[in-house]
C-alpha cells in the first residue's frame, strides 16, 4: 500500500460539479428570462396558468407558440454550437477552430437557400430546416469523399476549407441568379441568423438530431484528452483516431447542421464559449464539452434577449449581435497569441 497522501480528486480552479451547477442555473435563468421578455406585454403567471388549464387565451398562445419555442430553440442551438466548438478545438488542438471548419455551416446554409430559391417553404412549412439538414448531410458525405475515412487532421481541415468555399460559392450563385429582389433579401436575412418566428415544430424536428449529435460528441471526450499529447500518443492510449474523427464529424453535422437549419448562421458562439471556459476546467478537453454546451446555450439566450431589449427596429438579427460581440473577442485572442509568440 502506498504511504503517499492521495490528493483531492480532480482539483482545479473551480470544482467541475460546481461549475456545471452554476452554468446549469445560469442557463435555466436565461431560459426563463427569454420566455418572459418579448415585444408584447405578457402576464407570465396568467399565461402559464391558462396553458396548464388548456385555455387557448392569447397569453397562452403567445407563450406556447412564440416565447417557449424561441427560448428552447435558442438553448438547443447555443448548446449545439458550444459543445461542437469545444469538440472541434479539442480535435484540432487549436483554440481558433470552430464548428464551421468542416464546411457544415455553409452547406446547411446552402440547403436552406435552395429551399428559398425554389419557394419550397410555401409548400412545406418544415422545408427550411429539412433543407438545412440535407445540406449538412451532403457536406459530411462530401467531406468523407474528399478526405477519405482515414484522413489526417490536416487533410480534414483542407477538405473543410474546400467544402466551405464550394458551398459558399453556390450560395452566392443562388443570390446571383435569384429571380427577384424579394427572394434575395429573404435569403440574406435568413442567413444572418435569428430565433424569431420559429414554431414548436422546429423544436421537435431538430431536438432529436441535436441530442444524437451531442451524444456522439460526448463519446469522443476521453480521446480528446488523449489528443492533448498528440496523435501518436492518443493512439498509443487505445484510441482509434479514424473512428473518433468520424464520430466528431457525424456529431457536428447532426447538431450544427440542424442548428443552422433552424436558425441560420450564428457566429462566434462555438469559438468564444469553449475558449472562455477552458481555464475553468483545467484545460481538460473532455470536461469542456458539456460545460461549453451549457455556456453556449446561456450566451445565445442572453444575446437573443439583448436583441429584443435593444430599441432598434427592425429587430437586429441574432447572428449580427453574436458577431458584433464575438469579433472584438477574437481580436483580443489574436493579440494575446501574438504577444505569446514574441
Amino acid at each position, binding site marked *: 500500500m*502506498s504511504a*503517499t497522501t*492521495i*490528493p483531492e*480528486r*480532480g*482539483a*482545479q480552479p473551480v470544482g467541475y460539479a460546481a461549475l456545471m451547477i452554476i452554468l446549469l442555473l445560469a442557463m435555466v435563468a436565461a431560459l426563463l428570462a427569454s420566455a418572459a421578455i418579448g415585444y408584447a406585454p405578457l402576464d407570465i403567471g396568467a399565461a402559464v396558468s391558462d396553458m396548464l388549464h388548456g385555455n387557448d387565451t392569447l397569453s397562452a398562445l403567445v407563450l406556447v407558440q412564440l416565447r417557449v419555442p424561441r427560448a428552447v430553440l435558442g438553448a438547443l442551438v447555443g448548446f449545439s454550437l458550444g459543445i461542437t466548438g469545444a469538440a472541434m478545438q479539442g480535435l484540432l*488542438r487549436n483554440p481558433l477552430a470552430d464548428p464551421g471548419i468542416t464546411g457544415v455551416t455553409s452547406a446547411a446554409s446552402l440547403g436552406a437557400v435552395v429551399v428559398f430559391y425554389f419557394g419550397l417553404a410555401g409548400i412545406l412549412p418544415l422545408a427550411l430546416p429539412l433543407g438545412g439538414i440535407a445540406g449538412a448531410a451532403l457536406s459530411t458525405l462530401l467531406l468523407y469523399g474528399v478526405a477519405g475515412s482515414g484522413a489526417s487532421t490536416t487533410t480534414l481541415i483542407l477538405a473543410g476549407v474546400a467544402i466551405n468555399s464550394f458551398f459558399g460559392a453556390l450560395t452566392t450563385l443562388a443570390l446571383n441568379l435569384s429571380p427577384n429582389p424579394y427572394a434575395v433579401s429573404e435569403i440574406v436575412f435568413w442567413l444572418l441568423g435569428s430565433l424569431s418566428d420559429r414554431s414548436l415544430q422546429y423544436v421537435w424536428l431538430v431536438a432529436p438530431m441535436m441530442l444524437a449529435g451531442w451524444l456522439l460528441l460526448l463519446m469522443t471526450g*476521453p480521446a480528446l*484528452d*488523449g*489528443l*492533448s*499529447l*498528440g496523435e*501518436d*500518443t492518443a*493512439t*498509443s*492510449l*487505445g*484510441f*482509434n483516431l479514424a473512428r473518433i474523427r468520424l464520430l466528431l464529424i457525424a456529431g457536428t453535422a447532426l447538431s450544427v447542421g440542424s442548428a443552422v437549419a433552424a436558425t441560420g448562421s450564428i457566429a462566434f458562439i462555438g469559438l468564444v464559449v469553449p475558449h472562455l471556459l*477552458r481555464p475553468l476546467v*483545467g*484545460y*481538460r*478537453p473532455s470536461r469542456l464539452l458539456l460545460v461549453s454546451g451549457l455556456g453556449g446555450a446561456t450566451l445565445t439566450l442572453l444575446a437573443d434577449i439583448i436583441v429584443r431589449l435593444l430599441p432598434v427596429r427592425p429587430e437586429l438579427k441574432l447572428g449580427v449581435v453574436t458577431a458584433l460581440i464575438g469579433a472584438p473577442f477574437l481580436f483580443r485572442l489574436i493579440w494575446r497569441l501574438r504577444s505569446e509568440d514574441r
Partner: protein
Amino acid sequence: MKLEARNIAINFGQAAVLRSVDLAVSSGEMVGLIGPNGSGKTTLLRVLANLRGPDAGDVTLEGRDLEEVGERELSKRIAYLAQGGDVHWPMRVEALVALGRLPHRRAFRDQTMSDRIAIEQAMIAADVVSLRNRTMMHLSGGERMRVLLARALAVEASLLLADEPVAALDPLHQLRAMELLRDAARSGTGIIVVLHDLSLAARFCDRLVLIARGGIVAEGRPTDVLTSANLAEAYGVDVVCGVSEGLPFYLPQTIRPPIPEIP
C-alpha cells in the same frame, strides 16, 4: 511479456527505409535502438507500438499478432513516449500524468483509487511530485520530459517504447531520465529507447541494436555493438572509444568518405 518484430520492411514511396529487420524486447530488459538520422528508428518504434503497420513482416506480443491483441489491450501493455513531447494545452502536471490512465478508463467514470495510486507512484518515480500544480508551459525542458515520462509510467504497462527521451536535455537531466528508465527496467518493465548519445546507450542499456541503411548493422551487448568498425559503417565517422572511471565514452572524431549505396 515479449514484444517481437520479425522481417519488418518499410517503404516511403519508392524508397525502402527498412528491409527485413528483427527486433525484440522482453520484460525487465532495456534495449537501446541506435543509428543515424533517417535510418528508420522512429518508424520501427511506431511499428512496434502499432501506430503504423509494416509493409512486410509481423509484430507479435506474447506470440499473438498485434491486430489480434486489440487496441485497448495493447494500450495497457505498451506505453509509448513520442519524440518531441507535444503538449497542446497548458494542463497541470498532475492532470497530464493522469492521462496515462486513459487505457484503464471505464465509460462515464472518473478515476478509481488504483488510478490515483498509479499516478502518484509515477510522479514519485519521475520526481515530479513538487511540480504537481504547475502547468506544463511553465516548466523547463528537463522538467517537461520527467513529467512526460511519469505520464508513460502511469500506464503501468509491461513495455515502454521511448523515442529520443533525452534529446535536447542537459547532461544532468539526461542522466536523470536514463536512470529513471533503468529503474523502470529493473522493476520489470521491458524498455526500448531510441538514443543518439552512444555513451549513454553503452552505459545504461542491456542490449543495443544498431540500424543503418535499411538493415541491422550489429546487435548485442553494448561493447560488442559499439565497435569502431560498426560505428564507421553505420554513421560514417571514426569514433574515439574509451573508459573513464569505469564508464564507457564514445566521441565522434572524423568524417569518413561516403559509403556507396547497397544496390
